[in-house]
C-alpha cells in the first residue's frame, strides 16, 4: 500500500473485496454506518478508510449483483486488514460474471468524456423518449417536436453529427430530420453510454460530436425464469403504457422477450393562444391539436453462452404513429377544422407520420487465450411515411392528378435498408490492451410521396481502426488510435412530376425540373486520437486530442427542393468535402471528503463545417418563390464545458449542481461572426436529494428536486429567434419494497411543477413560438416476477 498513516492515534481499515471466484470487486459501495467517512478506492478491489479513531463501527458493503455484506468492526490500537467475499445475488436479473468493469473503473480508463446511465436513472427521470430521459445530463439536450419525438444534441450538435449505437450496431434512421424521433425503446434500455466530444476514431463518420451507445442488456443469470412488468402513466398527454419483459436461462441457453405499448393523447402547453409566425392559433383547453400518438415495440433475444463463447441474436421492431401539430405542419401555418380536431384529444388525423424500424442483430464474443474477438452483424429497415392532405405548393397543380401512382395522402416516404458488419479483436499484451477491427455498411435509400426533399441514394462505407491502451503504471494510462475510412455515395436523379413555367427571352415554356442529378462521390479519411488518464485516489484527470470527420449526407450533396416545413428552398452542393473537426477535451474530477467536483472543458475547431446558409435571395423557378438556403462550408470555432458538483452533506442528503456552457462562432463565410443554429444557452441544474436510510421495508427511497435555470439565448443566426431565459422545477420521488421476495420499484415525477410557459431554444417548434409541455405527473411502477424457485437460494 502506498498510503501512510497521518496520525499515530488513528488507524487504517483496509478492506479487500473479492467475489466467490476470488476475483477482485472494484466499484463496490463500501461505507461505515452512521459515519460520513468515505474510503479511498485502490485498484484490485481494495478500499481504505485512512484515519479511523478507535471505536466500534459497522461496515456495510453493497454492489449490484451481489448480496450486501455487514460486519461489526472494532478499531483498537492497530491497522486492520479485512478480506471480504461477496456472493452473487441470484435474484438480480443481471449477468455479473460478464460485466467485469464497474462504471467508475470504465470512466477512469476511458479517454473520452464518458457518462454512463443505467435503467434506474431512466426510471427516475422518465421522459417522453429515451433522449428526453437523458436530458438531465449536462451537455446533453434534445431537438424535436414535443415530448414524444426527439433526437440527441450533444454540446449543441445533433442530427448526423451524433452516432447512436444500439447493441453494437450503428442505428440508421432518418438522422437529418428534426420532426421525428429516435426509434429506440427506452424500456428495453438498461445501460447507455454518452460520449461527449469527437469520437469518429472509435465510431466512424458521424460521431464528430459524440455518441450515444445503447448497450446490450445484461444476460439473465443462469437457471432463472422470470420477468418484470412496467406500468407507466402520464397526466399531461394522458399517456398510458406498459412494458412486459420475460427472460429465461438454463446454464448455457437463454431467451428474452419484451413488448412495449404506449398510447397518448395531444399534449398540453401553458397557453391558450400561440402565434405561428404572426398567425394566431387558439388552443382548445391548452391542447396542441393532433399531437397524439401510439407506440408498439417488440423485442426478442436468444443466445448461447459459455466461458469462452457467447452468441446472441436480437430481433426488434419498433412502430410508432404520431400526429403533427395540425395548425403548423412543419413551420407552415394552416387553417384547420378545429371542431373536427377538438372532438377528441386522442385521435390521430392528418398530418401524421408512421415510422417502423426493424432490426436483426447478432453479437458474438469469443475468448481465446489473451484475445477477445467480437463480431456484430446487423440488418435494419427504417420505413417512415408522412401523410397529409394534398396541398399544392408552388407550381404543383391545384388538383392532384388522378393518373398519379403515388397515393394522394402520401406527402413523403423514406425506405432505408442497411446491412452492417463489425469485427474486432481485443488483445492483451503486457501493458498494452490493443484493439483492432473493421466496420462495413451498405445502405439503400428510396423515397416516395408527392413532395420532394432528399433524393434516393445508395451508400457503401468501410473503416479499419487500431487502438492501443497502455497501462503505463497504476496511475497512468495512455491511449492512441488511428482509423481509416472510405465511403462511396451514389445519389439517384429525381425529376418533378409536375411542370413549372420557365421564363426565357419573354417567352414562357413549361419544364419538368430535375431536382437531383445522378451524383457519385467517394470519400477517404484518416482520423486519430491520443489521450491520457491519470488517476489518483482523490483525483482523476483525463485529456484527449483528436481529429474526427463526417462524410456529407445525401441531403447536403443533393437536396434541391422546397422544404415547406421551413419555407425554404434548400440547395445541396455536390462538391462538399468531408467535414473535419479537431478537438481537445479535458476532464478533471476531484473527490474529497463529501465533495465530488468534475469539470470538463472542451475546445473544438472545424476547418470546413457544413452549414445550411440562408441567403438573401429568393428563387421563383426551383424554389417556388422561397428563400434560397444553400449548403456551404465555413470555419467554426467552438468551446465550452460542463461542471458537476456534488456535495454529500449527510448519508441521506446531497446537493448537486450540473451546469453547461457552449460558445460557437463561424469564422468565415457568409455568416462570419454568427453562431451555429440550435446552440443551447448556458444552463444550470440545481438538485437537492433526500434519501432516507434504514426505512425498511422501504429501500432506496428518494425525494429529489431539480431546478433548472436556463439563460436567454441572444446569440442567434438566421433563421433563428432569440429565446428568453427561464426556470423550471421538477420533483422526483420513489421507493422500492418487497412483495413476495420481489422488489417492486415505484417512481413518481412531477415535471414543470409551476406549469411554466417557456420556449426551448433547441426545439424545432421554437421558430413558430410553441411553448414546451406544461405540468406533467409521471407515474411508473416496475414489478418483477419469478417463475422458478431458485435452488441456489440460501
Amino acid at each position: 500500500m502506498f498510503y501512510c498513516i497521518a496520525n499515530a492515534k488513528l488507524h487504517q481499515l483496509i478492506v479487500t473485496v473479492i467475489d466467490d471466484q476470488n476475483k477482485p470487486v472494484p466499484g463496490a459501495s463500501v461505507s461505515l454506518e452512521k459515519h460520513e467517512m468515505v474510503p479511498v478506492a485502490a485498484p484490485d478491489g481494495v478500499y481504505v478508510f485512512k484515519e479511523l479513531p478507535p471505536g466500534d463501527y459497522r461496515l456495510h458493503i453493497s454492489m449490484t449483483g451481489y448480496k450486501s455484506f455487514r460486519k461489526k468492526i472494532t478499531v483498537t490500537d492497530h491497522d486492520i486488514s479485512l478480506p471480504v467475499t461477496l456472493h452473487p445475488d441470484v435474484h438480480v436479473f443481471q449477468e455479473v460474471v460478464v460485466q467485469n468493469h464497474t462504471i467508475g473503473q470504465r470512466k477512469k480508463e476511458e479517454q473520452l468524456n464518458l457518462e454512463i446511465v443505467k435503467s434506474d436513472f431512466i426510471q427516475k427521470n422518465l421522459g417522453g423518449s429515451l433522449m428526453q430521459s437523458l436530458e438531465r445530463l449536462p451537455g446533453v439536450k434534445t431537438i424535436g417536436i414535443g415530448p414524444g419525438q426527439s433526437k440527441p444534441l450533444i454540446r449543441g450538435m445533433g442530427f448526423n453529427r451524433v452516432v447512436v449505437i444500439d447493441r453494437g450496431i450503428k442505428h440508421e434512421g432518418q438522422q437529418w430530420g428534426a420532426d421525428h424521433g429516435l426509434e429506440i425503446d427506452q424500456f428495453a434500455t438498461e445501460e447507455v453510454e454518452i460520449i461527449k466530444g469527437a469520437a469518429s476514431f472509435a465510431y466512424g463518420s458521424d460521431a464528430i460530436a459524440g455518441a450515444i451507445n445503447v448497450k446490450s442488456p445484461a444476460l439473465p443469470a443462469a437457471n432463472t425464469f422470470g420477468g418484470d412488468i412496467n406500468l407507466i402513466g402520464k397526466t399531461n398527454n394522458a399517456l398510458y403504457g406498459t412494458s412486459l419483459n420475460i427472460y429465461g436461462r438454463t446454464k448455457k441457453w437463454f431467451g428474452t422477450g419484451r413488448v412495449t405499448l404506449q398510447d397518448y393523447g395531444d399534449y398540453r402547453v401553458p397557453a391558450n393562444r400561440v402565434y405561428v409566425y404572426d398567425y394566431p392559433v387558439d388552443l382548445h383547453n391548452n391542447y396542441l391539436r393532433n399531437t397524439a400518438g401510439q407506440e408498439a415495440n417488440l423485442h426478442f433475444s436468444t443466445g448461447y453462452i459459455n466461458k469462452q463463447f457467447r452468441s446472441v441474436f436480437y430481433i426488434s421492431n419498433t412502430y410508432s404513429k404520431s400526429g403533427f401539430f395540425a395548425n403548423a405542419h412543419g413551420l407552415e401555418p394552416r387553417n384547420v377544422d378545429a371542431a373536427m380536431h377538438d372532438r377528441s384529444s386522442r385521435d390521430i388525423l392528418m398530418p401524421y407520420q408512421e415510422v417502423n424500424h426493424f432490426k436483426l442483430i447478432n453479437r458474438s464474443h469469443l475468448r481465446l487465450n489473451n484475445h477477445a474477438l467480437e463480431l456484430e452483424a446487423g440488418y435494419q429497415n427504417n420505413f417512415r411515411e408522412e401523410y397529409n392532405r394534398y396541398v399544392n405548393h408552388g407550381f404543383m397543380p391545384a388538383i392532384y392528378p388522378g393518373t398519379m401512382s403515388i397515393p394522394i395522402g402520401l406527402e413523403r416516404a423514406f425506405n432505408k435498408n442497411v446491412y452492417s458488419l463489425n469485427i474486432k479483436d481485443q488483445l492483451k499484451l503486457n501493458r498494452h490492451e490493443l484493439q483492432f477491427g473493421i466496420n462495413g455498411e451498405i445502405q439503400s435509400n428510396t423515397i416516395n410521396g408527392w413532395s420532394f426533399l432528399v433524393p434516393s441514394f445508395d451508400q457503401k462505407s468501410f473503416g479499419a481502426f487500431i487502438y492501443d491502451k497502455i497501462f503505463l503504471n497504476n496511475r497512468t494510462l495512455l491511449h492512441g488510435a488511428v482509423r481509416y475510412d472510405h465511403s462511396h455515395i451514389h445519389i439517384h436523379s429525381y425529376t418533378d412530376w409536375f411542370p413549372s413555367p420557365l421564363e426565357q427571352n419573354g417567352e414562357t415554356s413549361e419544364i419538368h425540373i430535375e431536382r437531383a442529378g445522378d451524383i457519385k462521390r467517394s470519400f477517404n479519411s484518416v482520423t486519430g486520437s491520443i489521450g491520457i488518464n491519470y488517476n489518483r485516489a482523490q483525483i482523476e484527470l483525463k485529456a484527449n486530442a483528436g481529429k474526427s470527420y463526417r462524410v456529407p449526407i445525401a441531403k447536403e450533396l443533393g437536396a434541391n427542393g422546397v422544404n415547406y416545413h421551413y419555407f425554404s428552398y434548400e440547395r445541396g452542393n455536390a462538391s462538399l468535402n468531408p467535414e473535419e473537426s479537431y478537438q481537445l477535451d479535458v476532464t478533471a474530477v476531484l473527490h474529497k471528503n463529501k465533495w465530488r467536483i468534475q469539470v470538463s472543458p472542451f475546445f473544438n475547431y472545424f476547418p470546413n463545417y457544413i452549414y445550411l446558409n440562408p441567403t438573401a435571395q429568393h428563387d421563383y423557378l426551383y424554389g417556388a418563390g422561397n428563400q434560397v438556403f444553400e449548403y456551404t462550408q465555413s470555419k467554426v470555432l467552438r468551446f465550452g464545458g460542463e461542471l458537476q458538483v456534488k456535495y454529500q452533506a449527510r448519508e441521506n442528503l446531497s446537493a448537486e449542481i450540473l451546469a453547461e456552457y457552449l460558445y460557437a462562432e463561424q469564422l468565415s463565410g457568409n455568416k462570419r461572426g454568427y453562431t451555429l443554429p440550435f446552440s443551447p444557452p448556458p444552463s444550470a441544474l440545481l438538485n437537492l436529494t433526500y434519501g432516507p436510510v434504514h426505512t425498511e421495508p422501504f429501500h432506496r427511497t428518494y425525494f429529489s428536486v431539480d431546478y433548472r435555470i436556463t439563460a436567454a439565448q441572444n446569440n442567434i443566426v438566421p433563421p433563428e429567434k432569440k429565446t428568453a431565459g427561464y426556470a423550471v422545477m421538477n420533483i422526483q420521488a420513489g421507493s422500492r419494497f418487497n412483495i413476495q421476495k420481489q422488489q417492486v420499484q415505484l417512481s413518481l415525477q412531477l415535471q414543470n411543477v409551476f406549469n411554466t410557459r417557456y420556449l426551448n431554444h433547441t426545439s424545432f417548434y421554437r421558430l413558430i413560438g410553441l411553448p414546451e409541455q406544461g405540468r406533467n405527473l409521471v407515474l411508473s411502477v416496475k414489478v418483477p416476477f419469478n417463475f422458478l424457485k431458485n435452488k441456489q437460494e440460501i
Partner: protein
Amino acid sequence: MKQVKILKTLCITIGIAALIAGCSKDKDAKDTEYPTIDVTASVAFPKQCSELTRGQKFTAKILVADNAELGSVSIDVHHNFDHHSHSTEVTECNMAAVKTPVKPFLLVKSIPIPAGNKSYTVSEQINVPSDIDPGDYHFMIRVTDKEGWQTMKGLSIKIK
C-alpha cells in the same frame, strides 16, 4: 492541497474564459433584426381583404425596410378555395364557400432589391388574367435582408 489548487485554478480559468467569450459577443454587434413589411401603410397594395378584378392590371406596392440592408422580395398569389389560410393579419375577411379549383390564378415572382437600401417600395405591375377562377386568394410577401433574415406576410384577397 496541491491537487485542490490545480482544480481551483482550472475552474477560475474556465470561468474567466467563459466571461471573456460572453463579453466579446457584444463587441461586434451582429445584425439579428428581421426586416419588416408594412402592409397597412396608405400606399401599400394589396391590403388585407382587398379585391382585384379579372382581366385587369394592378400595381402591387410593397413597403419593406431593414435596420441594415435589404435582400430581396418574393410574391406569391395562390388560391385559398379550401380555406387552408396563410393570412397573418388579425382582421378576418368574408370568405366564400369552399370550392374546387378549375383554373386558379397562380403567380410566383422574385423581385431583387438594389444593393444598399434600408427601405424600399416595390412597384410591380401584375396582370390578372380574365380566364381564371374568381374567389378567395392569398397574397404572400416574403422579404429577406442581406444577412438572410426573412419576414413573411400573408394577405387574404378576393378576385372578382
